[in-house]
C-alpha cells in the first residue's frame, strides 16, 4: 500500500546493466546454484560465483576456516577466513551459470577464475566462461593467498608484471565478455597495479579483496586463531573493520583512472554502499554481512537506498558515482586552519567525563570539569582536534566556529 520511491536503482558496470548496485562477491554465499538462486529471489542484482578452477586442480581446505574479531560486546567486527577457492570445479560452476542465466535472465552472473601459473588453465577457464554465457569474469589475484609465481610470499595482485601477465592470458580469449581484476589493497601503490590492469586491457576493477591479518591468539595454548590441529596461519580479514581500507583503495583508483569500479569489503548497510559509490564504485559487493545476517539484508539495502535517493531528490543511484571525489585532496592541499572549537550541549550531556580524559591525555588539556561534573572546554586551549566529538557516547559535542 506504500508506493516504492520513484527512483531508479539500476547501475551500469563494464557495459552491463545491474538492476541495483548490490552484488554478491565471489565467496561462500555464492558457492552453489541453489544458494545464488535464493539470493536472486531475495533481490540481489548479481553474483560472482565463488572462485573456481579446472577439474584437475586439487583444492585443499583445512577446517575450521573461520575466526572473528569482536570488539567489546560487538560480534564479528572483523571476520577472518583461511578458506580457499571453491571445492567445486568449473564443471559445477558452469552448470550453475547456465541454470541461473536461464531462470534469471536479467540478473548478472559472473565467474571468478583461478588458473595458477598455467596459461593453459587460464585459457581453458576463460573459453569455458565465454561458452557458458557468463556475464563477466573476475580474475582472482589475491586468493589463494600465496602466489605460485616467482615471489611466493607475494600475491599475484601485488606484482604488476604478474597482474599484467595473467590478465593478458585471460583477455586473449575473452572476446566481448568483460574481464575484471579483483585486487588486493595491500600494495604500496595501488595506482601502479591499476596501470598494469589497464595495460593488460582489462575492463574493470573490483577493489578490494580481504586484508591479510592475524585475528588473535589463544592465550592458553598460544595457538593463533583458527586452530587447525595445533597450528594456524594468516587469514583474510573482512567485515566492518576493512571499510576504511576499501574506501581509500577505491578513491585512490578513481582519482587516477576512469576504469569501471566495483567495491568489495566492509559494507553492511546502504549507507556504506552510498559512500563506496561516492568515491567511484558503480556496484558494491557483499559477503561478510550476508554471512552474518543472511541474504535478506538486500531488502534493507534496496529500500534504504531508494528512500535516501528520494529524500535527496536524486533520480538514480548512478547519480552518486564519484560525487565525493572532488572533495578529496592530498593532505598538503588542505587549507590550514584552527577556527573551530569544541562545544558541549549541556542539556544532553551525561557528565561521564570521557571527553575530559580524552582531551587531557590525547588532546590539548582544554577541558575542565565543573563542580557538578559538567565538562567545560576552554576555547583558548582547544585546538578543535575533534577527539572529544568522536568519543562522546551520547553525541552531545560538536565543533562550533571559533568566535
Amino acid at each position, binding site marked *: *500500500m*506504500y*508506493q516504492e520511491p520513484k527512483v531508479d536503482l539500476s547501475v551500469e558496470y563494464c557495459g552491463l546493466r545491474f538492476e541495483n548496485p548490490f552484488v554478491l562477491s565471489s565467496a561462500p554465499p555464492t558457492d552453489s546454484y541453489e544458494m545464488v538462486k535464493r539470493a536472486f529471489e531475495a533481490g540481489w542484482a548479481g553474483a560472482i560465483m565463488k572462485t573456481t578452477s579446472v577439474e584437475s586442480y586439487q583444492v585443499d581446505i583445512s577446517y575450521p576456516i573461520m575466526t572473528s574479531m569482536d570488539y567489546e*560486546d*560487538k560480534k564479528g567486527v572483523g571476520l577472518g577466513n583461511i578458506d580457499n577457492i571453491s571445492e567445486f570445479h568449473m564443471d559445477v560452476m558452469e552448470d550453475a551459470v547456465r541454470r541461473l542465466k536461464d531462470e534469471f535472465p536479467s540478473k548478472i552472473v559472473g565467474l571468478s577464475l583461478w588458473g595458477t601459473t598455467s596459461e593453459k588453465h587460464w585459457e581453458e577457464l576463460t573459453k569455458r566462461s565465454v561458452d557458458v554465457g557468463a556475464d563477466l569474469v573476475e580474475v582472482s589475484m589475491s586468493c589463494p593467498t600465496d602466489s605460485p609465481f616467482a615471489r611466493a610470499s607475494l600475491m599475484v595482485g601485488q606484482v604488476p608484471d604478474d597482474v599484467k601477465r595473467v590478465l593478458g592470458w585471460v583477455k586473449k580469449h575473452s572476446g566481448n565478455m568483460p574481464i575484471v581484476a579483483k585486487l588486493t589493497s595491500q600494495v604500496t601503490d595501488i595506482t601502479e597495479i591499476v596501470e598494469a590492469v589497464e595495460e593488460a586491457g582489462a575492463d574493470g576493477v573490483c577493489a578490494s579483496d580481504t586484508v591479510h591479518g592475524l585475528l588473535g591468539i589463544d592465550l592458553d595454548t598460544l595457538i593463533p586463531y583458527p586452530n587447525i590441529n595445533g597450528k594456524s596461519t594468516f587469514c583474510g580479514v573482512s567485515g566492518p573493520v576493512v571499510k576504511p581500507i576499501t574506501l581509500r583503495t577505491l578513491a585512490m583508483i578513481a582519482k587516477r583512472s576512469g576504469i569501471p569500479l566495483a567495491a568489495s569489503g566492509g559494507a*553492511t*548497510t*546502504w*549507507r556504506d554502499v552510498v559512500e563506496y559509490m561516492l568515491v567511484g564504485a558503480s556496484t558494491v559487493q557483499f559477503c561478510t554481512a550476508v554471512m552474518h*545476517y543472511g541474504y535478506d*539484508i538486500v*531488502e*534493507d*539495502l534496496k*529500500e*534504504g537506498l531508494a*528512500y535516501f535517493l528520494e529524500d535527496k531528490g536524486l533520480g538514480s543511484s548512478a547519480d552518486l558515482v564519484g560525487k565525493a571525489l572532488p572533495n578529496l585532496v592530498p593532505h598538503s592541499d588542505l587549507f590550514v586552519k584552527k577556527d573551530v572549537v569544541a562545544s558541549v550541549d549541556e542539556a*544532553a550531556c551525561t557528565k561521564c567525563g570521557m571527553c575530559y580524559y580524552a582531551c587531557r591525555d590525547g588532546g590539548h588539556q582544554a577541558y575542565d570539569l565543573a563542580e557538578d561534573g559538567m565538562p567545560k572546554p576552554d576555547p583558548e586551549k582547544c585546538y578543535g582536534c575533534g577527539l572529544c566529538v568522536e568519543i562522546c*557516547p*551520547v*553525541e552531545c559535542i560538536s565543533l562550533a566556529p571559533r568566535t
Partner: protein
Amino acid sequence: MSGRTRATRLSPAERVKSFEEIEKTLTPVQALIEASRCLMCEDPPCNKGCPAGIDIRSFIRKIRFNNLWGGIRVLREANVFSGVCGRVCPTDALCEERCRSQVLTEPINIAALQRFLTDYEREHGARKPTPEPKRAQKVAVIGGGPAGLTAAHELALMGYPATVFEASAQLGGAMTSAIPAFKLPHDVIEAETDAIKQLGVEFKLNAALSDGATIDGLFEQGYEAVFIAVGLQKPFLLAVEGEDSKGIHSALDLLAQANGLAVPEPVKMGKRVLVIGGGSVAMTAACSTVRMGAERTTVVCLEAPNEMPAFAEDVEMAWEEGVEFVTRARAVRFLNDGKGKVTGVEGVNIEWKDPGKFVPESAVDVKGSAFTLPCDTVIVAIGQGPDDNAVRQFHGLKTNERGYLLVDGETLMTSRPGVFAGGDILHNPPSRTVVQAVAYGKQAARSIHDYLSRAK
C-alpha cells in the same frame, strides 16, 4: 551485550506538576544501541505476541540497518495506531514476553523502538499510502475508537467508502477520553486519526445510534455492511450505600475531564481523594488526581499489590507519584456531611475464599477489620460495561446476558448478516487494550471485504 535501553523519564517530582508526557523518545543513538541488541531470531517470538500482526523483527532490523523509513512502512502496514501502541501497549505481556534477548540480559525495549520510529515519522512528515481504486459498496462503522477507526482505515485502503458514526464530539474513543496525556499526548492520536481522514473516510460526530438512527436505517441509506465497535461506556457502580453522594465520580468522567473534554458533572478536585479499584484505569485516574491538585490520593482495592489487574508499570507510576494504597479492602458504605457531600468511606479488609481467584465474588470480609477513611472526593474505577442505550439499539443482535455482543470468532459477524462487531463490546475478547481493538478492526475489515465480495 548491554542491558535494556530506556528513554529518559520525568522525575516523579517534575511530572506531578503537569500532564506533560512522562516518557521521552529514544535518541537515535539509544535506538541504534537497542536495535543492535536484537538477536533477529529466525521464527521470532515477538512477532507471535503482537495482536496487530506487526513484523517486529523486521522493523527492529530496519533500525539496525539504518532503513528508518522502511521500518516506518512495516509499522504502518500493520498498525495505523503504531504511535499510540508504542506508548500504551502492555508489551511485557505481549511481544516482549518471550524475547530471546532475556537469555543474555533483558528483553528488547520494543515499545520504545516502535515509538522512536513513529516520532521520527511525525517529525519528518509522514509518507502516505496509496489506496486501491474506489469501490461502490459503502460501509458504516459505528464507534470512532481504535477498533472502528482501524476498520475504517483498512476499508478505505481497500477502496471502500467508509463512514464513521461517533456518539461523542471527538474521535479516538478511550484513547482520547480515558488515557491521560502524561501517557499518551493528544498530538500522537491526532496525527494517526488525521492519516485516516486523509484517506477520505467520512466522520459523523455526535451521531450515536438512536431510535431515529438505527442499524436498519443505515441499510436503508445504502450502507451494505455495518461494523459495530461502540466500546464500553457505562461505568460500573459499587452498589453500596451512599454512592450517590456529591463528590463521587466515575474514573471515565475524571479522565475525560483531565483530557479537556466536557463532562456532565465536572469533578471539583478536593484535597483528600480515594480511588476505588485496582486496574490500570484506577492507577492512571489516581495519577491524574495528583496532577489536578489532590493533596493525598489513596487507592482502595480488593487485590494485594501483586494481585492487582493493573499493569505493573502503572502501579509503579502511581507509587512513585506518592499515591497510597489500601489493599485487600473494599468499600462498604460512603459517609456524608448530612447535605449529601461525601466525607469518608467505611471499609473492611477482605481475604480470598478461592485463593488465586481475585474476583469480587471470591472476597470474604475479615472480621474486626472495619476501618474508616476520610475523603472529600471519590473516583470509582472498577470497570465499565455496555451502554444501555447502545444495547437497546442492537435490536435483537445476539448478546450475552450482560449486553456484550456475540460474534463468529472467525468472521466477527453478529447474528445478523452484514453486521459485524469488534473491540471491547465483544463478549470475552483476549484483552481490552488498544492493540486488541486494532486487531479486531483489521479482522473486521478483511471479513467485511470477503462478505461484500461475495455479495456482489
